[in-house]
């Protein structure tokens, strides 16, 4: 930096802060004024702004849950059972006991079934216990959460079988697809913020699962790749559905026929293709941070304080 830079800087500061024109700026005024038209920035679409904010917070929630401790190996499955939430333990124990009695076995058998694979004799016990647990839940959010855990389990099964070189049977694939669909059905019943959070979670999980599948396929050689393709297609479909729902939650509700809550904001009467630029349907603009204060963040060339009160 030299003295002329410093002099020019002082002149510019005076101009920007107070509109004072120093001799250093003579010859620059016309060009500076020619930039003034760039002050103006179109307002943000409030609906879109709100949706982006929801997506961001949902992504934050998904990443937060993704960094929580996860099961790394099937060998420590017994430990993971005892790490489950205490509030569920009693219910699980009851379900397992009931399942064991129904199947003529023991509670120990039912616990052992938790680690079984689709090609093993105890696998039907495992799936029955899952179904019973889902039956006991009457809340779409809790059911969605549980289904996501079961989907992780399906993937762990697929991963183990693929690594063992075993074919991925129809049982596990059908169950994967069914539970994915059920997860979407439950998500469709949630309010927008929770639905978006759920979809962000599905998208993130799908991304992780596709990476796992790609790794398995690349290390599979002549293994059961066609079986993995089926699982891959199911995950890709769920990723696409989740992304569609993140863009517009109504697409998921329409697909699964979920009703909106009575206190939910009104929907626009018309949804033209590529539209949605007409402002919020409810007109509320409820704290999405997009006050669209318009142009001139820097009060360019205008006397008065330069800063617009934003946090430094």
């Amino acid at each position, binding site marked *: *930096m*030299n003295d*002329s*830079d*410093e002099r*020019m*800087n002082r002149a*510019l500061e005076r101009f*920007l802060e107070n509109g004072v024109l120093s001799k250093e700026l003579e*010859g*620059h005024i*016309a*060009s*500076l004024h*020619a*930039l*003034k*038209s*760039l*002050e*103006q*920035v*179109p*307002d*943000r*679409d409030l609906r*879109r*702004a709100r949706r*982006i*904010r929801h*997506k*961001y*917070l949902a*992504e*934050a*929630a998904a*990443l*937060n849950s*993704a*960094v929580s401790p996860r099961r790394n190996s099937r060998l420590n499955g017994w430990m993971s059972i005892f790490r489950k939430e205490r509030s569920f333990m009693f219910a699980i124990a009851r379900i397992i006991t009931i399942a064991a009695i129904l199947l003529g076995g023991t509670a120990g058998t039912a616990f052992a079934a938790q680690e079984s694979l689709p090609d093993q004799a105890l696998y039907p016990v495992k799936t029955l216990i899952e179904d019973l647990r889902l039956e006991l839940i009457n809340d779409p959010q809790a059911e969605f959460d549980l289904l996501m855990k079961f989907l992780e389990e399906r993937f762990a099964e697929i991963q183990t079988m693929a690594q063992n070189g075993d074919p991925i049977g129809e049982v596990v694939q059908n169950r994967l697809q069914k539970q994915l669909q059920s997860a979407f059905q439950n998500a469709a019943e949630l309010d927008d913020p929770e639905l978006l959070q759920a979809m962000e979670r599905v998208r993130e999980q799908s991304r992780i699962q596709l990476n796992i599948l790609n790794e398995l396929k690349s290390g599979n050689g002549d293994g059961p790749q066609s079986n993995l393709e089926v699982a891959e297609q199911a995950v890709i479909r769920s990723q696409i559905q989740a992304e569609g729902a993140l863009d517009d939650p109504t697409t998921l509700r329409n697909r699964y026929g979920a009703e909106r809550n009575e206190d939910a904001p009104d929907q626009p009467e018309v949804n033209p293709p590529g539209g949605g*630029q007409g402002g919020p349907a409810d007109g509320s603009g409820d*704290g*999405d*941070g*997009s*006050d*669209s*204060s*318009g*142009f*001139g*963040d*820097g009060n*360019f060339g205008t006397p008065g304080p*330069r*800063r*617009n009160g*934003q*946090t*430094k």
Partner: protein
Amino acid sequence: MPSQENVWLDAARRFDQQALAAIYDAYSDELYRYAFRLIGDVARAEDLMSETFSRLLRALERGGGPKTHLRAYLYRTTHNLAMDQLRQSKKELIEETVEPQVDHGIRNPEQSVELKFEREQAMSMLNDLTEEQRQVIILKFFQGMDNEEVAATTEKTVGAVKGLQHRALNSLRRAFEALQSETEQAA
């Protein structure tokens, strides 16, 4: 006493939803406006702003992200994303100006045409600057940053920012004079 930004950052590293929401609410609008000024398109500006916050989350997840100067970090991310996009689309900068969706105070088509012409002229002048000069001018003139903030955002010294600013002003004057000359010849 820690600044508000540092309080937010500490909480954001724990993925505290309130802190993350506060960060978004504080900076999303100005980052959108910055992105629009760089790229000239409403939808792409929203996407860039959204991606900026997504990058912040992913950086925090990995234990990275800014230790201080959060605002500067966000501006830098937006700027880098915008430049990547512009390079990808093989544009030096905006060659066609998108007509604003909402014209504040514009009441008739003539005014709208005039504004469009002025915007095109201004963008053309900015195109004559180097990437660094353009960044300094936009941050200082339109985003309301002082030299220290511009320096933190561009990762340069305050002295270097003043130098870039001076050279940018000279380039803008030359670009304006060239445009005037072209207009006179056309007339």
